[in-house]
Structures are given as C-alpha cells and as structure tokens.
C-alpha cells in the first residue's frame, strides 16, 4: 500500500548578519534562490543557527510595504505585522514563522525587526546611517533621507570598506572598555550595493548635513543623544524594549565621539575622516 503522506522537500539557508545566524526554511526552491542572491555575502554555509524561521509563501491581503509595522509582545512571543506579511517569533525556542508572498522585501523587514530586538538586549541598535571602515576603524554617517548617506558612500575612496549605505549594525562588545563594533549589513539604500560582511570598532558617529564647505564640529552630548534616538530603528511598542533602546543610545553618546559633518558633495570630505 502506498504511503498516505507525501514528503515535502524543504530548502534552507542561513543568513548571518552581525554574526547572528538565522536559518530560513521554505518549500519553494525559487524563493530560496532569490534569497541567496539578495543576501549574497551574508549566506553562511554552516549548519548552526540561533534562530529558525519557516516561511509560508501564499498570497497576502495587501502588498503594501509602506504601511505601518505593528510589533507586539505577548506571552513570550513577538508578533510582527505589516500590509505585506505576518510573522511571529519566540526567542525562548529560537523559532518563528513568516506568512508572506514570494518577495525579498517582507522577510527583509522581519530580519530588521528581529535584529533590533536581539541588539536591544546587547546594548546595540540598528541605525539609519551609512558606515564604512577606514584604517581599521568604523565610522558611522547618520541622517534622514536626503542628508547624504548615499552620497558619502558613493564618494568613499578605494581604501575604504563600505559596511552599508543605509542601515548600520552596532553592537556593544565590551562594556568595561567602551567598545562598540559596527558590522556590515545587506540592508541597502539608493546605492543598492550590499555592504561587506565584516566588522571594526566604532571610532566616531558623524551627523550628516550638506553645506557650502567641509566642516566637522563636536556635538553636545544631549543633542547627540536626541539625534541618535531619532535615527535609530525601533519598531516595538514595548516598554522594556523602549527603555533598553533609550539607555543604549545614552550609553553610546557617552562613549563614542559624535560630530556634525557638513560637507560639499565631492571626494575631499573623506580627507577629514579616519
């Protein structure tokens, strides 16, 4: 008698951002191939993963990626919802499930949320900023859309390693020695260039402004804190997580130099960096 159950082939890959491996499981080989291309450089060959997500591919009610994201915490489970996906994640078991259509943007949003939550527990954060390594040190360039993140990334000289032109990954690695490390991310902006999967200690945060001349000015610590908070990615309406993000921002500006970088959009600005 033939078997009553049909075995469904399952395909997996591990996406490791900031050294945190997340396994994604799907039954669709084409979707897997799409992810391999999208996260090239961040796909790990290793079997080990801290978190495991099953992706259910099905048409969703809306494909609206611009609608607000809702992230809530209930009974040990994070629930994430936007027009184009629904997801849940249980940190204690390390497992989660994503319901979305076959597109790379929905899972990208889920990964951003998961990493903000993981980082918040480690004194770190995701930041709307470009970042790059020069002379072994990482520099962050924060600003809202149009402030110059893409421009400064595009102008980077050849001895610079671009970590991202859009979303920086910052983790506190050594509380005693004021240590923060920036990691490369595959989260791209207008440059549409995936960052290098590498890392370096953070030397400075620059708040970007475009102007008639190149100028670097120190920023008062309270202003630095306000601006850092306004550029941090945070999704969860959860008191503990909000408090952690706030304390992470305050700790960071107390330990890392923050400057306002006004620059003319040409390559000479990089003479001031590093």
């Amino acid at each position, binding site marked *: 008698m033939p078997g009553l159950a049909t075995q469904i082939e399952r395909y997996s890959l591990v996406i490791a951002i900031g050294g945190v491996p997340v396994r994604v499981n799907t039954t669709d080989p084409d979707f897997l191939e799409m992810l391999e291309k999208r996260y090239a450089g961040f796909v790990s060959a290793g079997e080990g993963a801290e978190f495991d997500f099953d992706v259910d591919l099905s048409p969703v009610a809306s494909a609206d990626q611009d609608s607000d994201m809702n992230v809530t915490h209930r009974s040990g489970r994070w629930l994430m919802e936007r027009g184009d996906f629904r997801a849940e994640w249980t940190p204690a078991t390390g497992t989660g499930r994503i319901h979305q259509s076959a597109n790379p943007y929905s899972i990208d949003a889920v990964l951003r949320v998961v990493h903000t939550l993981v980082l918040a527990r480690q004194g770190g954060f995701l930041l709307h900023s470009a970042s790059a390594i020069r002379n072994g040190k990482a520099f962050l360039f924060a600003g809202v859309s149009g402030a110059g993140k893409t421009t400064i990334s595009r102008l980077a000289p050849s001895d610079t390693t671009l970590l991202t032109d859009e979303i920086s990954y910052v983790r506190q690695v050594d509380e005693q020695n004021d240590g923060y490390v920036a990691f490369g991310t595959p989260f791209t902006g207008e440059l549409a260039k995936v960052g290098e999967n590498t890392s370096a200690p953070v030397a400075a945060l620059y708040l970007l402004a475009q102007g008639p001349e190149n100028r670097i000015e120190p920023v*008062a*610590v*309270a202003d*630095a*804190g*306000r601006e850092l*908070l306004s550029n941090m990615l*945070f999704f969860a*309406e*959860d*008191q*503990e997580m*909000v*408090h952690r993000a*706030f*304390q992470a921002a*305050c*700790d960071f*500006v*107390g*330990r*890392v*130099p*923050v400057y306002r970088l006004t620059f003319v959009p040409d390559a000479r600005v990089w003479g001031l960096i590093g």
Partner: protein
Amino acid sequence: MNKKLYVARSPRIAARKLGEEMLVMSGQGSTLFTLNPTATILWQAADGATPLEEIVERRICSEFEVNPEEAMRDAEALAEDLAKHGILLISEQPIAEQSIATPTSPVQESR
C-alpha cells in the same frame, strides 16, 4: 488647609541626564521629552515620600530665589503637566517605593 501632595518618578519612563539636560523617554509611544531645569529638579527630587511643598522650599526656592507661594503654584502646574505626559505620579498620600523609577547614572559632556 491645603492637602499635601506627593510626587514620584513614573516607573514607565526611562530618564538620563546627558550633559546638563535631562532626557526622558516614555515607554509607551516612544516619546522623547527634554526637561527644563525646574522640571529636572522636581523629577530628581520626586521620591514619593517628600511632600511637594518641601521639595519646592528646599530645592526650587533656594536654587531660583523665587517667592515660595508663587514657586508652589508653578510647581503644582508643572507636576500636573508632567503627570499628564506620564512622567510623574501625583498623590495625596506618600507613594510606595516600588512604584518609583530609579535614576540612572548621568552621561558627562566630556567624551
């Protein structure tokens, strides 16, 4: 005779003094506030056990050289405003210690 008022730092907010400014973030809605010098003194002194009148007399009048009645009126209005934003708790009874946020270490200007 006026009733005594007690004020306490809400445990639902996170606060940190950065340089000379007190930044306060509400856990709900992620709203960031910057307290002015008077509000900062009031927030720091709001231990739930010291009556507002005493905080005004000892901390605000001495710092700003203002008339006690006027300072008390302003402090009541300020406390109500801070309470409206969820930053302070106000009660006519002393407020239990477990309901009060613990101040965290300030961040100095010299980085």
